[in-house]
């Protein structure tokens, strides 16, 4: 009986309810006689910004100490301890955001979207590791980055990857970097944050998919040392550019290379370059011909990249909310599907004409095509330069660190007999 009554009340009310949009004032504010005071909802404040500046100061301090440990003290155990401290602080305690890898996207968004202003500490997080790399190499990777640290800890049985494969896979970060810029600049979101494989571990919470991906990376990381850093990380591209030019950089030997080959297998990241064998006399003509061919090929590769990027733009644009909503709404209107999605329902509820949405989607597609062409051109340049640099012979007499690839982890120092001599040197003098 009572149920019937409620049902009737609901039915009459639902007729009334469709009229006002937000529903405000549908029922009058009550007049309380019992002296009841209407409470207000609480508004707990976010963390004070001063915390972010503290994190920035810690970042600067850890970078400085790492640089000192790698370049001056040359002490792997110290670097390792510092790495664990960074992992605990930036990873597990701070739980990730914002990190220098992600901050790249904020900087791009600050440039591409005038309504977004990059907070100053985010700029700090972006620039500090880069500036450090320009002076001292990638010390950020060595002991500061929590993403690197969590992989470094599990790198127990690293295998050597064939050189050709290493060179090929090291091209992937450039692709990720281009995609990252493309997605941020077109308003499709921060893909590097979205697909961060390790943040779920730091937060001990995350989607099942990303936890699985993270676990796969960590298991693979036992054998392939730091796979994310080497073959995916987009920030590593910028850092390697900085490190190439670095003012001071870690060296395997403290003074001179005796070519003892002891360090040959020291680096789990393939960043130690062997001395080049005696040069096989190549006819000068052949070298010139190859160079000329490659430099002729370079504009062609860039052009091909642009075309490929332009055509990849349209499918890539489906990752943008406006585009996939528009496609769904179009399918529904054309009667191609009876299934609605949350997006199309929300769009219908907002009451905008579908033509507006189609136009917005077309604009986004255009942005993706133009951005895709630019990204393709960039990748063409990178690929062409890589071919050029591989084809040019450079004389190398000693075992040397590849500055672009070196993560400044200080592992190789111990392998060097000159280093052992340096350490025991003063003690012998005492005796």
């Amino acid at each position, binding site marked *: 009986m009572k149920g019937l009554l409620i049902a009737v009340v*609901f039915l009459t009310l639902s007729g009334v309810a469709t009229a006002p949009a937000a529903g405000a004032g549908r029922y009058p504010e009550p007049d309380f006689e019992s002296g009841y005071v209407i409470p207000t909802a609480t508004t707990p404040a976010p963390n004070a*910004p001063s915390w972010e500046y503290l994190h920035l100061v810690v970042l600067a301090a850890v970078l400085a100490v790492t640089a000192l440990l790698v370049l001056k003290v040359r002490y792997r155990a110290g670097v390792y301890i510092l790495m664990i401290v960074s992992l605990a602080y930036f990873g597990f305690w701070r739980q990730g955001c914002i990190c220098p890898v992600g901050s790249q996207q904020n900087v791009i968004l600050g440039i591409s979207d005038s309504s977004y202003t990059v907070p100053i500490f985010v700029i700090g997080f972006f620039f500090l590791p880069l500036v450090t790399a320009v002076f001292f190499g990638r010390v950020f990777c060595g002991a500061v980055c929590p993403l690197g640290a969590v992989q470094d800890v599990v790198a127990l049985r690293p295998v050597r990857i064939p050189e050709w494969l290493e060179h090929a896979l090291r091209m992937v970060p450039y692709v990720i970097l281009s995609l990252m810029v493309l997605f941020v600049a077109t308003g499709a979101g921060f893909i590097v944050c979205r697909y961060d494989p390790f943040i779920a571990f730091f937060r001990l919470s995350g989607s099942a998919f990303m936890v699985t991906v993270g676990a796969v990376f960590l298991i693979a990381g036992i054998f392939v040392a730091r796979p994310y850093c080497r073959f995916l990380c987009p920030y590593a591209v910028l850092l390697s550019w900085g490190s190439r030019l670095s003012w001071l950089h870690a060296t395997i030997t403290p003074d001179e290379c005796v070519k003892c080959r002891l360090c040959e297998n020291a680096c789990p990241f393939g960043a130690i370059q062997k001395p080049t064998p005696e040069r096989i006399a190549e006819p000068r003509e052949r070298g010139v011909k190859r160079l000329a061919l490659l430099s002729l090929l370079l504009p062609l590769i860039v052009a091909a990249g642009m075309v490929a990027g332009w055509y990849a733009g349209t499918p890539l644009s489906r990752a943008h909310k406006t585009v996939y909503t528009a496609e769904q709404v179009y399918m529904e209107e054309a009667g191609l599907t009876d299934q609605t999605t949350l997006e199309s329902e929300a769009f219908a509820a907002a009451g905008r004409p579908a033509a507006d949405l189609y136009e917005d989607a077309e604009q986004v597609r255009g942005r993706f095509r133009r951005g895709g062409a630019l990204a393709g051109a960039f990748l063409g340049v990178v690929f062409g330069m890589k071919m050029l640099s591989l084809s040019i012979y450079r004389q190398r007499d000693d075992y040397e660190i590849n500055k672009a690839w070196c993560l400044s982890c200080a592992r190789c120092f111990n392998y060097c007999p000159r280093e052992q001599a340096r350490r025991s040197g003063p003690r012998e003098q005492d005796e």
Partner: protein
Amino acid sequence: MKNDDKKTKARRRFLAGGLGAAALGALAQGSTAGRRADRPVWQLDPYLCSQCGRCATECVLKPSAVKCVHAYAMCGYCELCFGYFLPGARSLDESAENQTCPTGAIRRRFIEEPYFEYVIDEPLCIGCAKCVTGCNTFGNGSLFLQVRHDRCLNCNECAIAAVCPADAFVRVSASRPYIFKGENDSTSGGLS
């Protein structure tokens, strides 16, 4: 050796130039950042929210940092609250099968005839917006979702914002981190 020296010098000059440009850029950005809002935090605009339910499932926190908030000043204090009771509830009492809230996070308290106060028990709330739908459809719309900043990790990209079908998530200034419905607009957030 001479060649090396030259190279080093050129490199330093290049570096100095690059660093100078970078620092200038950072300063330019920083000065505008200083004038404008401080740190951005995530918030959802309750007027755009379509109550899709993703706030409950997509947040990196379990349970979600998005919770239902009650703007008491907008509330009608109805006995038959459509945020509280399921349509077709068998009886208007506190038993769980009559409530819209799947976790029983809405508490109701008798004030005086015929008024009831509804309070969100925040630790129980999962941000599913079922009560919000009820309150918006048949009531005053005084129940709505908000990102609670004592819980939110403020991810660089909010996982809910990335999939919010109504594009209700926005970055707001940390000094005005809430967008409240109703009359108490003095506490309301960054959108104007």
